[in-house]
C-alpha cells in the first residue's frame, strides 16, 4: 500500500510553510492545468534572462508568422522566466521555474504598465532519489502547471520542446489519486466557516451524461477522517479506501445509489479542488495552499516520473 507522511510530518515541509507568502501568492486561487514533462536537456538556471529574451522573440515570431523578429527589442509581449528556489519538495529537487507572459498595451508603453496574461511553472516536488540517477545535462522538472489561454501554452510549450528537447503531455488525475486528495485535504485544519467538501461523480454507460454531486460538511468529513486515520501525519491506501467506503455507504443508505460504481471526477474542498482532466485549483493560502500543491504534486509525481 502507498504510504505517505501527512502535512507537517517532516522538517522539509515545516520549512515550506515558512515560504515568503509574496513569492508564492501567484499560485493561489487560479486554475492550473497539469502537464507532465520529460527531462529538459541542457537547461541551466544561469541563463534564465537569455531564455526570457529568446522566448519573447519566439512568441512574437509565432504570432507574426513568416516575418523576421529581432531578438531583444521591445515587443508587445514581455516574458519573464524566473526561479522559485523555495518551491521544491526536497533538497534534491530542482528549484521550480516560473514563466510569465505580460502584455504591454501600445498606449501605455511609456508608463510600462504590464498585465499578466499567462503563467506557467515547472516544478519538481517528488523528493525521491530518482533524480540522483539523472545524467548530467538533464534537468528533471516533471510537472508543468499552466494558467491562461491554451494558445500561449502551445507557444511556450513548443519553445521548450524545441529548445530543451523535452515533451509535454496532459496529465490526467485518476479517481484513485482524487480520493487521496479528498482524504488529504479533509485532514487539514480549516475554519469552521469553510465551504463544504464536494465530490462529483459521473455515471458511466448512459446516453445523457449524468453527474452526481455529493456535498459533505467539512467538520463531518474531518470527524470521519479522524476516526479512520491511525497515525496522525501519515496516510495509507487502506485508510483512504475505508474513508471513501464510509462516504459511499452513507450515500447508499440515503439514496440507494452505489457511488463506487460511478467514476470520481472532481474533488473540491475549502483548501483546493482537483478535476480528473488534470486541473487543480488551490484556494487557501498561503501555507496550507502551498502544502496542498506540494502534496498534489507528490501524488502526481510518480505518474510524471514513470512517463519521463
Amino acid at each position, binding site marked *: 500500500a502507498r504510504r505517505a507522511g501527512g502535512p507537517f510530518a517532516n522538517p522539509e515541509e515545516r520549512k515550506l510553510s515558512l515560504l515568503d507568502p509574496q513569492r508564492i501568492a501567484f499560485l493561489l486561487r487560479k486554475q492550473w492545468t497539469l502537464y507532465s514533462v520529460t*527531462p529538459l536537456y541542457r537547461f541551466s538556471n544561469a541563463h534564465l534572462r537569455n531564455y526570457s529574451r529568446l522566448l519573447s522573440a519566439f512568441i512574437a515570431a509565432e504570432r507574426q508568422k513568416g516575418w523576421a523578429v529581432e531578438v531583444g527589442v521591445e515587443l508587445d509581449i514581455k516574458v519573464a522566466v524566473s526561479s522559485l528556489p523555495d518551491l521544491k519538495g526536497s533538497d534534491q529537487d530542482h528549484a521550480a521555474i516560473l514563466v510569465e507572459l505580460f502584455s504591454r498595451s501600445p498606449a501605455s508603453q511609456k508608463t510600462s504598465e504590464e498585465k499578466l496574461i499567462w503563467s506557467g511553472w515547472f516544478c519538481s516536488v517528488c523528493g525521491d532519489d530518482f533524480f540522483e540517477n539523472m545524467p548530467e545535462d538533464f534537468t528533471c522538472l516533471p510537472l508543468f502547471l499552466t494558467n491562461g489561454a491554451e494558445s500561449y501554452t*502551445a507557444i511556450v510549450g513548443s519553445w521548450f520542446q524545441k529548445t530543451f*528537447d523535452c515533451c509535454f*503531455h496532459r496529465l490526467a488525475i485518476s479517481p484513485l489519486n482524487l480520493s487521496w486528495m479528498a482524504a488529504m485535504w479533509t485532514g487539514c485544519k480549516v475554519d469552521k466557516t469553510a465551504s463544504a467538501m464536494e465530490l462529483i461523480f459521473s455515471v458511466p454507460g448512459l446516453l445523457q451524461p449524468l453527474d452526481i454531486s455529493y456535498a459533505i460538511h467539512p467538520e463531518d468529513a474531518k470527524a470521519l477522517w479522524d476516526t479512520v486515520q491511525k497515525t496522525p501525519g501519515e496516510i495509507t491506501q487502506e485508510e483512504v479506501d475505508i474513508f471513501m467506503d464510509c462516504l459511499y455507504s452513507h450515500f447508499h443508505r440515503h439514496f440507494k445509489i452505489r457511488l463506487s460504481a460511478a467514476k470520481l471526477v472532481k474533488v473540491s474542498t475549502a483548501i483546493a479542488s482537483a478535476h480528473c482532466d488534470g486541473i487543480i485549483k488551490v484556494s487557501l493560502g498561503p501555507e496550507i495552499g502551498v502544502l496542498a500543491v506540494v502534496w498534489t504534486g507528490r501524488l502526481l509525481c510518480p505518474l510524471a516520473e514513470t512517463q*519521463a
Partner: protein
Amino acid sequence: MQRRQSSKTPKQPLQGHHKNQTDLSAWRKGGRIDPEKSIQNHQTPDRQKNDRQQDSLEQALCYFEKVQERVSLKKNSVLQKHLATVESVALQRGLPPEGFEVLLNVALSGKFGDTVNTCLLKSLVPASVIPESSIISSVSWLCVGKCSGNIQLLFLKWLITVFDFIDHKEQIHALYGFFFSFLQDEKMCPYVCHLLYLLTRKENGESGMQSHLQALLSLYKLFCPELVTITLPGKMKTYFKNSEGPWKAAISAIRRRSQGNSPLSQPLFLGTAQPQSRKRKWNTQLFIPASSANRNNLEQDRGKKHVDLYGTNKSFPVEQLQTFPQLLENIHRLELPSQMGSVLTNPLLLHYMNCIKDESVYLRLNYWMGQTLQEECTWCVADNQYEDEFKDFLETVYKTECFLQEGFSSCEEFLYKSLPLWDGFCCRSQILRLVSWIPLGSFSEMKSHLYDPLAQLFFTSSLYFKCSVLESLKELLQNWLNWHVIHLDSASDPQVCSLNTTLSGLVNVVAELIQFVGWISTVALRLENNPTFLLYFILDFYETVCDMYLRYSLPLLIMPPAGVFYPALLSMDSVSLNQLCYIMYRYRTNLVAAKENEQSKKKILQFKFSSQTYQEYNQYIIAMVGCLWTSTAFQKDIHPQGLHMDEELLKKTAMQEFKTSFNIVYHPAMMGYAVLFLQQAWPDDTTFNFSLIKGKKWNWYLEYLYAQGLKGLKLFIESSINRVSQASCSKAENTQA
C-alpha cells in the same frame, strides 16, 4: 506478418535486417517518394480513374512541351481539352515535379494569350515539391520579357506562395541580383520585395520608403546593422499584401487529402508548418518533429566550452544534410537536431547515431519516445481513436530499431507496461515486431512482463496469432544471438560486461526463451490439432535453435520437446517431415562439432553440453531411424513419450504390416511420393504394390525423393544413417553422436 521469407538454406547471421539499412535510395532525406506513385498506392479504389488522369496529364504535358506557334484558345479544342486536364488534375491531386518546367516555360514564353497563361499559372499547384531548375528557367523568361506585365506579376505571386515547396534554393539565391533589378518596376516592386525578403540571407546585406521596402530594409538592418543607417519604425505591421492568390487553398486541400492517406510518410520538408488538420488539444497530436538545428541553445551556451563550434561558425546545420556523401564530409562537425525524435524520419541521422557514442543522444530519444508511446497507445489511453497514426508510429519505431540493429529501452518499457492490457488485435503486427527487438533482460523480468501476458493471449487467440507470436519470438532469438556474435569480439568493452550479458547470463536467458517457446508450442499443437501451418512456424524456430552452436558460437543446444518432435515426425505433410529431418541433421552437425572441440581441447571450454542433450538427441534419432528407415519404431523407441508399443497391443489393431507403416514408403507424409514413383516405375501396374520398392528400387526411390526437393530428408539420411552397403536396402545402422 512476416518481414521476410524464411528459406530452407542455412542463413548467415545478420542477413535479414540489413534490408532496411542497405536501401541506398533511403539515404536521401525525407524520403521523397514520387508523389504520383504514392498517391496511387494509397487510393486503390480510385486507381483506375487515377491512371486515366495520369495518362491524359502526360498527354497534356507532352502537348505543351511540343507546341510551337501561337494558338488561339477559342478555335482550338485540343488546347481546350489539355488545359482542362491540367486544371482538374492540379486541383485534385496537385502536379508532379516534372510538370512545372514544361508549364512555366509555356506560360512565360508568350506563346499563348494571357487567358491561357493565367489559367496555366493558376494550375501550378504542387503535389510535393517544385524543382529548382524550373524556377531558374522561369526567371530567364522573365528577363527576356516575352510575357505581359500581368503574367509577370502573377508569376511572382505564385513564387511567393509556393516558396517553401521549392526543393533547393541555392541557385535561386544566386539570382538574387536579378530579382533586385526588378525592384525598379513600380508594379512588381512590392512582390519583388516580398520575394527578396524570403530570399535574403545575412550575406545579402547590401543595397523611397514604402512598407514593402521597409520590411526588406528591416531585414537588412537585422543582419547587417552597419549598412542600414536610417531608423525604421519599431512597430510591426503587415508589410506585404496577401499574395497567396488562388493557390493557397488548393495546396492545403491537396496536402490534407494526401495526409489523410498516410500521415507519417509525408515528406517533412515544410518543417514546423504542419497543418493542424484535426481539432485536438495542444500537443496531443502524434507528430515526429522535423530535424532542425538548435540555435537557441547555441546562443545560450556561447560562454561554455562546447560552443566553440558556434564561435568559429563551422558546424554543419542538420537542415542542410541531404545526401550520404554530405554526411561523410561533415560528420566531424555535424550539429544534432534540436529535437532528437526527428532522427526517426531521417535515415542520414540514423547513420550518424550509429557511429556516435553519446549517451545523451539515446536518452533524449528515449525520453521522447517513451512518453509518446505511452500517451498515444490506443489501448492504454481512453478515448484515443487515432489507431492508424499510432500504427504508423510503431512501424517507424520498428524500422528504426532494424536500422540501428538495437532495441530502444523506452520501447521495451512500453511493451512491458502495455502488453498486459493488450487485446492482441490492435496494431498486432507492429507490436509483435517490436517484441523481437526487446533487449536481453533478466528472466524474472521477461517472465512477468513478456512471457506471461504473451502466453495468455497466445492460448486464447487464433491460429494466425499463434503463428505471428512464434515468428516474432524467432526474430527475438535471432536478434539476441546476433547481438552475442557481434559482441563476442569486443568482449573487452566495459559496456558488455554488465551482469546479464555475461556468457552464462546470456545462455540462461536464451535457454529460458527456448523453453518457453517449446512449452507454448506443445500446448498450441494440442489445442489446434497439429495443423501444418503452425508446425511450420514452430519448426522454423527450431531451425535457429539447432544451429546456435556453430552459427552463433553459443555453447547451448536444446532439443525440441516431445510434444513438438512427435507431431512433426508423424505429420501428414512432407514439408514438416522434411523440415524435421533438416533440423535433426543440423543438431547432429552441431553436437558432433561440440564433441570434437571438447575432445581435442582446442579451446578451454567453459561450457559443456549436458549429457542429457546427447541422450535426448539419441532417443529422437532412434525413433526417427526406426520410423523412417528400419521399421522398428514400435520396438526400439525408448523415449518415455515415444512410439514404443507392445507387440500384443499392435496385433490387436488388426493392422497388417504395422511395422513398416512409418517408413519412407508408407509414412502418410510420403505415400503420395511413393504412389507417383510407382506410377513412373511400373506404368502398367495399377495395384500400387508398395512392397515392390526395395533393393535397387529403394535407392531409385530415394533418388526420386531427393529430386522432388526433399533436401532435408537427403541430408538426414546421408548423415545419420550409416548404410552398410548400397545394395542392401532395409538393414541400416543408425549412428549415434
